[in-house]
């Protein structure tokens, strides 16, 4: 590339460069088309190259999204004012001219897949923000870039392709997509859960974390191709300002991610907790079917009129004492008396039950009156054997009295069970929740009936859910559905009255209260140590876990951290804490960049304020997570 200079009479000089051939593959011409060759000089800027290319192809279209990708260097030539010389491009460069926005398949936390156009030239962080913007109509949502791409680890998933090429202008499609994003999925079939990959150990969990994409580099640079399938997951476990009113999509997707984490034992919990999670899932799926979209039902009554109206109604309800349940119930006062359920006439009033020898005597003094407030109510039911027992543990100064009520049939059982439950919480039968409580008990009974075998009465099965769908596979083995159902029903009584958004929030709260919540694991080798250990990265601390015993050896909190460094040459992370505590480790199951990004990301979150600032400080994020490449 020899240079020629022309000297003008005025004394100015102008360098002329020899023209040379540059060949560029133009994607729009098809995969088999030969590269387009244009004649360029080294001082031609990238914009000029593009103009020449477009002229040469003679295709009329909108080229504005197109840019040049330099294959050998793995970089986009986005600065159109830079010359070829400045970029260091010579004739041997393999350049591809193609759109920056390209289709991608994204697996959402709820198991659905969306196809959308994502930017392949922005840093992933920004690309994800763009995706979030596309996925939700709510402006707040897009500001919360907690979605980070993760490369798909299992390709065997059935593709639930929910086509939505980015024509969002059409409102019908938009609505469909929005529905898909914002309504919780029905519980999966138990087989689906069993088939999924489940991490069996901390090390398994650590391996998953090796797959997060680098948020400071673009998709192309990380070898992501058009139409690749990626996972979209919440990576950081700090959830800012989760407002059920405005964040429907985020709340729903968060719930889905949490639900799968529980079902696949990504996070451990106790059996009692599992039953409660199961009950909440059941409730959520039930409520979201019956009240689609309407998330906030019980808004405060601000209008005096309506408040008064409801007061008046309530008053009526109170004054008319139509809130009695009278029925013959067989009754066994103490467990010690082995046989003998004796039949009495029972009356349910307010939060008490009273019993009489017979209906005729019910006007007089009862044999005994028992206040159920604060008592424990448990079912003892076997539908097949027509056994409908209510076990009551009634507190008394001397201890708890165990009492069994034996009901005749399902209907009676549902009523009395509902009454006992409400009474134990201090509510009377007049409470508005009485009917719905009865309803839910009956639907659980129906589930048990259907699960217990005979397919003859499968007619009403649409109401039922296989309770195995609500718990992790461990409990599929441990309990048959008919054993599991009452346990979930038991937990269900505490959540049955929640609205959809409250139930979702409760699910997340219990998830967040689990001891291992928010931990992302990486297998590391500490400096000076000879064995692999596990580093757990949480929103507020790092923990060191002994692989052999599984015990937490040490905890370091970020607020005591003075600085951290990555030695990119030896791939080692070094952290200094207050009080001259220094730790250093190399990472085994993930690149140290990933650990670095986790820590930096959490520190970035902690700097975010609650103010409703529209702007996400991207520079700061990259500064904290990007490493030397970004500096």
């Amino acid at each position, binding site marked *: 590339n020899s240079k020629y200079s022309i000297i003008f009479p005025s004394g100015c000089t102008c360098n002329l460069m020899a023209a040379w051939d540059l060949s560029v593959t133009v994607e729009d011409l098809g995969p088999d088309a030969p590269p387009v060759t244009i004649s360029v000089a080294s001082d031609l800027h990238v914009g000029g190259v593009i103009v020449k290319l477009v002229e040469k192809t003679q295709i009329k279209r909108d080229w504005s999204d197109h840019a040049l990708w330099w294959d050998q260097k793995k970089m986009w030539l986005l600065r159109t004012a830079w010359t070829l010389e400045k970029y260091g491009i010579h004739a041997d460069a393999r350049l591809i001219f193609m759109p920056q926005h390209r289709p991608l398949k994204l697996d959402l936390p709820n198991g659905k897949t969306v196809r959308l156009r994502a930017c392949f030239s922005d840093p992933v962080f920004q690309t994800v923000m763009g995706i979030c913007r596309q996925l939700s109509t709510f402006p707040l949502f897009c500001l919360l870039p907690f979605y980070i791409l993760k490369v798909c680890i299992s390709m065997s998933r059935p593709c639930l392709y929910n086509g939505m090429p980015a024509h969002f202008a059409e409102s019908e499609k938009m609505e469909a997509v929005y529905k898909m994003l914002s309504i919780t999925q029905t519980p999966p079939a138990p087989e689906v859960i069993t088939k999924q990959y489940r991490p069996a150990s901390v090390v398994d969990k650590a391996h998953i974390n090796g797959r997060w994409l680098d948020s400071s580099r673009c998709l192309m640079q990380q070898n992501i191709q058009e139409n690749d399938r990626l996972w979209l997951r919440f990576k950081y476990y700090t959830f800012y300002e989760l407002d059920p009113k405005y964040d429907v999509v985020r709340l729903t997707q968060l719930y889905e991610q949490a639900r799968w984490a529980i079902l696949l034992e990504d996070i451990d919990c106790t059996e009692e907790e599992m039953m409660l999670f199961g009950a909440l899932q059941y409730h959520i799926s039930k409520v979201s079917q019956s009240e689609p979209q309407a998330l906030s039902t019980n808004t405060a009554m601000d209008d005096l009129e309506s408040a008064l109206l409801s007061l008046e109604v309530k008053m009526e309800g109170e004054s008319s004492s139509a809130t009695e349940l009278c029925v013959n119930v067989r009754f066994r006062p103490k467990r010690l008396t082995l046989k003998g359920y004796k039949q009495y006439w029972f009356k349910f009033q307010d939060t008490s039950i009273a019993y009489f020898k017979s209906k005729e005597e019910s006007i007089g003094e009862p044999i005994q009156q028992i206040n159920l407030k604060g008592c424990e109510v448990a079912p003892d039911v076997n539908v097949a054997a027509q056994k409908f027992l209510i076990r009551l543990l009634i*507190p008394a100064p001397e201890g708890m009295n165990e009492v069994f009520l034996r009901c005749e049939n399902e209907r009676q059982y549902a009523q009395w069970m509902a009454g006992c439950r409400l009474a134990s919480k201090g509510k009377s039968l007049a409470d508005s929740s009485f009917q719905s409580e009865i309803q839910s008990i009956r639907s659980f009974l129906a589930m048990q009936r259907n699960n217990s075998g005979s397919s003859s009465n499968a007619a009403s099965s649409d109401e039922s859910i296989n309770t195995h769908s609500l718990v992790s596979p461990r409990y599929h083995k441990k309990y048959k559905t008919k054993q599991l159902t009452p346990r979930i029903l038991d937990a269900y009584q505490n959540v049955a009255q929640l609205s959809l958004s409250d139930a979702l929030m409760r699910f997340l709260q219990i998830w967040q209260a689990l001891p291992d919540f928010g931990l992302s694991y990486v297998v590391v080798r500490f400096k000076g140590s000879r064995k692999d250990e596990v580093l757990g990265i949480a929103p507020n601390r790092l923990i060191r876990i002994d692989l052999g015993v599984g015990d937490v050896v040490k905890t370091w909190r970020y607020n005591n951290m*003075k600085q951290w460094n990555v030695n990119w040459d030896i791939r080692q992370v070094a952290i200094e804490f207050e009080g001259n505590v220094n730790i250093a480790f190399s990472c085994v199951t993930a690149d140290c960049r990933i650990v670095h990004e986790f820590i930096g990301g959490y520190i970035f979150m902690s700097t975010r304020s609650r103010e409703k600032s529209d702007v996400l400080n991207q520079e700061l994020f990259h500064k904290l997570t990007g490493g030397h490449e970004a500096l």
Partner: protein
Amino acid sequence: SESLHELEDTDLDALMADLVADLSATEEKLTAEIQGLKAPSPPLSSSLVSTSATSPLPPPQAGKPSKEDIEAQMKADKIKLALEKLKEAKVKKLVVKVLMNDGSSKTLMVDERQTVREVLDNLFEKTHCDANVDWSLCETNYELQLERTFEDHENMVEPLLAWTRDSENKVLFQERRDKFEVFKNPQNFYLWKKDKKTLKDMKDKDKELLIKENFCGPSIIVPDLEGVLYLKEDGKKSWKQRLFQLRASGIYYVPKGKTKSSRDLVCFVQFDNVNVYFGKDVKNRYKAPTDFCFVLKHPQIQKESQYIKYLCCDDDWTMRLWMTGIRIAKYGALLHGNYKAAEKKSVVSSAWTNRSTPSSSNQSTPSPTIRGTRCPPHPQEDFGNLPPPPPPLNEILPPPSPDPVLPPPPPSLASKPSGPHRKQPSGFPPPPLGIDNNLPPPPLPPPIDEAPPDFLPPPPPNTGIGSFPPPPPNTGFGSLPPPPPPPPPPVSSLPPPPASFGGIKKSLHPPPQDPQFLPPPPPDPVFTSAGAPPPPPPPPPAFAATPRANARPAGSVKKMPPAPPKRTTPVAGGGGGGGDLMSELMLAMKKRSDH
């Protein structure tokens, strides 16, 4: 005590008629009442107990736009009032004898809707104690030798109703450090594994952060507790060792031969139906291995029973850890709310005691008619035709007072249903003088309003300049950086603050309700001055003049989390790299502020 539970059967119609008739009574009646209040306190007797708080209020009569409106409004108010009265009529009241520290006792009337907090406030007024947050009401169970501090949000009457008729249980008014210790020194509970020195030297901002993380997030985090405790087996005399774990969902233990993995844990107890008590003298009574015993039982159980669970710890501190941990799991954010309310109260009270005259109000003397510590509740028999005598005055606070920070309203207000409150000022100005308690509250010292103590700004500057401020975890306020270095002497070359400074400064005062509010980025001068970064960015002198404004914005620059790593060389605070980082951060912040 069955009869206690029975609500009085009242003829509703008659009641309504009565109430509506009452509505016509107006100020005269109120005046009469107030005068009644001023009368010397009559001895407390059971007949007084029945005086209700249902003194009627004048119907609305302020200037109104149209007649229909008036009528509608009248009707609405009437219904409302009637309903309140209906409720009031059924309210149970209990006379409670509270034992003081010095062995004396005070007798109070407690209405069934009152919370422990309200009763405490009441006692503060009666005893003129310092109203610090540790003051508590405790229940002792004589027969079981148990003791429990009531939580401030609890209903006062309910646990007392569980006592048996001949019970020798007592209610004590005492200072209990344990009640709110977790909020004063959260590190001792949440970081108890750390060495003693670290815990002792914990900085205030780190404590605040711990509280924030564990109590102010979307979910309450219980302390991570796991250890071997001695369990007295159901109904048996032997004590068995087991490895227990505290979780938000209950106490679990590790069964024999199993691992500590969550899924193998066996649930020992969930907290819905039990309270945690301190068990006294268990070594003697039950041959316990130690005397550091906590007990879990249903509040209704008053006598020896197999349903009472006894757990022994090796030492006093472990026991307190567990008892506090259980309370956190059981009550969650309520505890934190209680603490904040108690703190506010203590500040207000100290202001009060400083200002008000010592000569005091209705010292209630225990009535001779009261036997034992509790009298049966007295059903309401008449509805507010008697002027309420002074003693109940304090007791009958309006149902749960919405905001304890507010100075207590003059008692004349307090003794009325809170509903039609708003009529009060026009209808009847609070008496300017009278009983001490009737004095309008002294103006609050401004700091209380502006910055409730729990949200005091971070501690004064103390961290080194060069060192990086610790990166605070995910919380807003707690993450406030250590304050900036002391401002250097004014540098004259710095540009004067822009005119807009005042506005910015204003916005720097976050509303106290929103602790997470982070001040907006500092005004431009900071950035310009940082263009050529001096090692620690000196805050512009303008800030020095306004320390309050100073603390935050400068901090938000300084607070930047640890520097991102550099290749091999550690990034030191003031180094070139650091400076570079600073300037870039500032640019970033500036961009943010531009939006």
